[in-house]
């Protein structure tokens, strides 16, 4: 391992203390010019599908304290996508600010700008609507049924040339053949085939979606927003409202968590519109139930896996078919679906024949979007259970089977080439893979050998089992994601670092400073970072696709190395020597021992000789997306009387390359793992027959609290990724993919039943056990695997 000064150290997160006190402002904490701002509130549909025949806002508009009512008939009708992706976005342009139609319970009808929330609510109650109900589509399997309604038939379109068939409610489709699955299946000694389903879930960032907007003295639109994608937000607002990009400034202050939920440009256009129309500052802050219902959810997915296997364990063919419920709009519909294959199938790269097909379809349900894991989470749930079944069938330990067949350093997978995010992928050879060691370390920590298959008794009649899952993700989107950085020397030898990268609580500001500090051979305290302000910082695609450390970090490293060259020139001129050694905050003449410090360089270049502002810029993209790897292990207690599953211990061992900041890297894995555990066991959207979410609150939804916590262990397994800054790969998303399959495999280990549907509620576990114990039921055979 390379010897680093700052990289690899758990440097304290630079904003941690101010955040702990509460003094570093989030969007809702800003004082806006001309306070108090107008409050924006939406009126939502309480039916799942209907035409808005007429809307009469006259009484609302007449109400004292109402500054405006915004709806389809007085707003731009541009189709766009709220998906905060690169341009052109690989998501359907099927969304308007407001429409003459509503497509789910919680869809926007109109918006009121008023002096107070109470006035806004009263105004909403005064709006007269005439709605013409339409037939509804709740079951994604019925999307193509001739009797099903068409959700989008008004000229919606896909901005890139890919499959888009709104006439069949299909917002994206894929068909990726590799080799010949038919003959592959014929070579197999046996076939394992199952259907797995996963559910909607909420990001549940503790800070709700919020945006504030005002006009500066030159009437530019200033948007302060809790976003993961400030530059995409600026571009999308510009297009939707038809105002030049240069007239918009997007500022991202501290964000209270995102997890993909704030990769949506959900509220920014509305605040900008209301500010432009009224000339007033505005604020739009979602309530918790609005976050649940009207923001975005994880896309539910039905995944069918069929694998042909030889008795020695070789998988000769794999068929994967996915049906993704995109809800009422197609945000991320193509790319989440793609990722369900692209981030999963290369893991077992020796399968010669594969067919991955899938559809994303519209339904009259809440809208899917980006969510940590991004399709891989949905797919790994079935994939790892399938591998567990195969290993059991051929009598090989699950971990031994994984060790043998997973992708290794120096190997590739055809999937990398044929499948990217919504288009062709990029070939790559794995440069670093510590998965074997992850498996070994994790297995030892959970006590795999001692516990696996032992069905040990737990307290109160429970039975214990252990299960595992292995996975990979990526590091940024190759040849697409771009991040940029600039550095400026101050005369005292300190630096300002400007990055477009977006710290949504992950600590990316801190690790980007560490990367710059390492290259500059400088203490991180000597660097002040400013991030995510579209006026002041260079471009960055934003915080998604596990890209920030790898892509933005690559830009920062390049930028800092370019600065080292500039500093060297000044020092060489000052000392009259060309061959200088770069040391801590200085350059030294190895002959004379004389050195010239950054501070001396700063004063000289600013005030004394050949005066210049030393400043460097760099941009970074990557031709590859080096996967981090992870092995996760769950020990569970299952109560056969009730079906209650308790996770006793959870272990993660991750290869994220060189962790830039180990404490922050662990934090990413721990947070993702706990989110994944509650996704596996408790989190779900409950709908009534009309498509209304009936549990839209923290209390009824069920995210994990301190009281639910299992014992947790997290290990960072160091590798060195040549393509990453100082050997780093990503770590943000991967940790959420393993809990559901590891727990499902552990439940099987304990009580011999398979759970094919998430969440694995006590009722489902109980019913699965009942079915297995009744010999007339088909699933008894599975129990006997």
């Amino acid at each position, binding site marked *: 391992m390379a010897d680093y000064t700052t990289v690899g150290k758990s440097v304290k997160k630079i904003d941690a203390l101010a955040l*702990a006190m509460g003094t570093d402002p989030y969007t809702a904490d800003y004082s806006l010019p001309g306070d108090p701002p107008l409050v924006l509130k939406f009126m939502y549909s309480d039916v799942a599908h209907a035409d808005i025949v007429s809307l009469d806002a006259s009484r609302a508009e007449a109400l004292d304290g109402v500054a405006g009512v915004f709806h389809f008939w007085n707003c731009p009708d541009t189709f766009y996508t709220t998906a905060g992706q690169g341009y052109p976005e690989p998501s359907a342009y099927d969304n308007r600010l407001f429409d003459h139609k509503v497509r789910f319970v919680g869809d926007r009808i109109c918006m009121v700008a008023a002096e107070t929330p109470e006035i806004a609510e009263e105004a909403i109650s005064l709006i007269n609507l005439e709605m013409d109900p339409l037939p509804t589509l709740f079951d994604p399997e019925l999307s193509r049924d001739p009797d099903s309604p068409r959700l989008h038939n008004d000229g919606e379109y896909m901005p890139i040339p890919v499959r888009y068939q709104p006439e069949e409610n299909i917002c994206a489709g894929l068909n990726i053949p590799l080799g010949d699955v038919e003959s592959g299946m014929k070579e197999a000694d046996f076939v394992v085939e199952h259907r797995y389903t996963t559910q909607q879930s909420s990001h549940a960032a503790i*800070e709700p979606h919020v945006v504030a907007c005002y006009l500066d003295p030159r009437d530019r639109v200033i948007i302060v927003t809790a976003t993961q994608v400030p530059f995409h937000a600026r571009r999308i607002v510009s297009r939707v409202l038809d105002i030049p990009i240069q007239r918009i400034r997007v500022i991202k202050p501290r964000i*209270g968590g995102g997890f993909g939920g704030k990769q949506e440009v959900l509220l920014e256009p509305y605040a900008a519109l209301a500010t432009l129309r009224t000339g007033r500052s505005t604020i739009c802050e979602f309530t918790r139930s609005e976050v649940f219902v009207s923001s975005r959810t994880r896309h539910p997915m039905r995944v069918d896996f069929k694998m042909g296997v030889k008795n020695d364990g070789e998988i000769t063919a794999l068929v994967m078919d996915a049906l993704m419920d995109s809800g009422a709009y197609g945000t991320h519909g193509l790319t989440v679906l793609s990722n369900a294959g692209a981030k999963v199938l290369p893991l077992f790269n020796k399968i010669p024949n594969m067919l991955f097909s899938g559809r994303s379809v519209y339904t009259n349900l809440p809208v899917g979007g980006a969510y940590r894991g991004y399709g891989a989470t949905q797919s790994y749930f079935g994939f790892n259970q399938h591998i567990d079944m195969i290993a059991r069938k051929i009598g090989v330990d699950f971990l031994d089977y994984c060790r043998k067949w997973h992708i290794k350093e120096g190997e590739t997978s055809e999937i990398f080439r044929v499948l990217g995010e919504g288009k062709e992928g990029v070939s790559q050879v794995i440069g670093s893979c510590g998965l074997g060691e992850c498996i070994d370390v994790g297995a030892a920590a959970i006590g795999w050998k001692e516990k696996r298959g032992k069905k040990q008794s737990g307290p109160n009649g429970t039975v214990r089992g252990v299960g595992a899952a292995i996975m990979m993700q990526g590091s940024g989107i190759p040849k697409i994601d771009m991040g940029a950085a600039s550095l400026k020397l101050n005369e005292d030898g300190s630096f300002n670092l400007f990055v477009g990268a977006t710290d949504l609580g992950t600590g990316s500001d801190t690790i980007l400073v560490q990367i710059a500090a390492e290259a500059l051979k400088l203490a991180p305290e000597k660097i002040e970072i400013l991030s995510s302000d579209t006026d002041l910082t260079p471009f960055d695609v934003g915080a998604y696709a596990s890209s920030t450390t790898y892509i933005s970090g690559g830009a920062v490293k390049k930028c800092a190395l370019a600065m080292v060259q500039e500093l060297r020139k000044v020092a060489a001129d000052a000392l009259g020597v060309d061959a200088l050694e770069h040391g801590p905050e200085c350059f030294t003449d190895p002959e004379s021992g004389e050195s010239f410090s950054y501070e001396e360089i700063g004063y000289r270049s600013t005030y004394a000789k050949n005066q210049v502002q030393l400043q460097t810029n760099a941009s970074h993209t990557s031709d590859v997306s080096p996967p981090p790897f992870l092995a996760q292990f769950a020990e569970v207690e299952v109560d056969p009387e009730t079906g209650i599953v308790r996770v006793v211990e959870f272990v993660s061992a991750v290869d994220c390359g060189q962790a830039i900041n180990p*404490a922050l890297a662990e934090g990413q894995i721990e*947070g993702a793992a706990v989110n994944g555990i509650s996704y596996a066991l408790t989190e779900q959207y409950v709908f009534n027959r009309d498509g209304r979410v009936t549990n839209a*609150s923290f209390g009824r939804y069920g995210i994990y609290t301190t009281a639910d*916590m299992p014992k947790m262990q997290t290990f960072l397994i160091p590798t060195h990724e040549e393509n990453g800054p100082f050997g780093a790969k990503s770590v943000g998303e991967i940790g959420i993919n393993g809990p559901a399959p590891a727990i499902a495999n552990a439940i099987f280990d304990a009580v011999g039943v398979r759970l094919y549907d998430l969440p694995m509620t006590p009722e489902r576990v109980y019913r699965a056990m009942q079915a297995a114990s009744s010999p007339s039921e088909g699933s008894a055979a599975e129990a006997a695997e």
Partner: protein
Amino acid sequence: MTGTITVNGAQVRVEFDSTDTLLDVLRSNGHTEVKRGCSSGECGSCIVLLDDGLVNSCQVFAATALDKKIITSTGLGENGRAHAVHEAFADTGAVQCGFCTPGMVMATYSLLKTSPDPTDEEIREGLVGNLCRCTGYVKIFDAVKLAGERMRKDG
């Protein structure tokens, strides 16, 4: 309505409607260190001390807080400086997005007042009303223990 509340030792004259919560009044009077995550008492982001008892300030009418002493996260340390609990959260990596942290800090402070050296079980119970989506709570347990250790040392 008008009245006086005492926030972090300072008397504040406040104007409010009868249905305004303590959270509304604190935030509109500049105490934005108290966060709003749900408005239904389920996330704990708005937890403050009200006469030494922990409350979700979104669940308390402002009127009931009149003439009472309120301590928020910024009032925990001396003269507005960081308190040992803040330091412990920062030092252990227990702060990610930080939105839940001021509330966590208040719950931790209150727990450590009654249990200076808390067991895991006491921490689970003491922080059960504070949701965090970023950290998975692991480093928050570490923070509570470190804060306890430092507070015990400092007496």
